[in-house]
């Protein structure tokens, strides 16, 4: 039996309208304390308006070893970028 507290990944939304962003991880005995610890560790300087915590073990990650089959095929497919359309000058912010 492990006596270590589980690890939690912390996501903070810095202001309304923005998405939660991963800021780091910490240890806590349960979800409620993880939120409180996140408040104390990651929002001391007014960084956030909302906190999400997720147990690290619940995150399913892509394997670094499979980087090539996962991501390399996309690098040679420039036609997936919408850069082949002539854009009228009047259209801004694309």
């Amino acid at each position, binding site marked *: 039996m492990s006596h270590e507290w589980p690890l939690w990944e912390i996501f903070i939304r810095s202001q309304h309208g923005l998405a939660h962003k991963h800021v780091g991880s910490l240890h806590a005995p349960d979800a409620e304390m993880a939120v*409180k*610890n996140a408040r104390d560790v990651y929002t001391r300087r007014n960084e956030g308006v909302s906190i999400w915590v997720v147990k690290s073990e619940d995150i399913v990650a892509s394997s670094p070893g499979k980087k090539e089959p996962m991501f390399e095929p996309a690098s040679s497919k420039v036609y997936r970028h919408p850069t082949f359309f002539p854009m009228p000058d009047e259209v801004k912010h694309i």
Partner: protein
Amino acid sequence: MASDGQLLDYVLRLADSDLILAQRLGEWVGHGPVLEEDIALTNVGLDLLGQARLWFAYAGEIEARLVGTGRSEDQFAFLREGGDFRNLLLAEQPNGNYADTTARQFYFDVWHELLLTRLAQSPDQRIAEIAAKALKEVSYHAERSADWVIRLGDGTEQSHARMQSAIDDLWMYTGEMFAADDTESALAAEGIAADAGALLPLWRERIASVLAQATLTMPSAAWMQRGGKQGVHSEHLGHLLAEMQSLHRAHPGAQW
């Protein structure tokens, strides 16, 4: 009619309990059981220190009204002797183990939140403003310390035993929070101060509910220590002040 002298005394009680407990919590810096707790507890300490500063600033103004000049925050904190301090005995009790620190904080926070809720309605504008500001911080403190009482009480056999003895050992320092003397009664009669005794049923109800969740037994001893608010302290305060005041006394007026 309550006097300015009584008001000064009352505001210093509020300031001193915050300051002394903040100093105690500061002793945990770098010694917390885990990094997260170390930071969290220090945050609570710094909140209380900030509140103490607001109360001291107001105390200085009242003193100036009373005798012409008022002392500064530093003078109040660093240049008074033990007998001049008006903090609750609970605040000066040593940190002990983590259950002791948690029990002390829990008893204090629940009372503090009730007190500030009441003081936020004070007809004394400054008291009401400081209380309203502090209340936001203290509501979080109270939630946090109750969380820990529940987790340690309803945790392992060892954490349960330690939490129960901490709850029992500090119980005798809680009576003082609800025992009004002439100063508090005179101010409470005008609504300026909280009616200390009126907070007791609310406090007991909250404590009982958390202890029940924590599978802990509520102490029932009736005999209570008192004296802190009148300047009669336990032997622990002198040692605490020696450490807290040494720098200022060695280098008077030192600035960062």
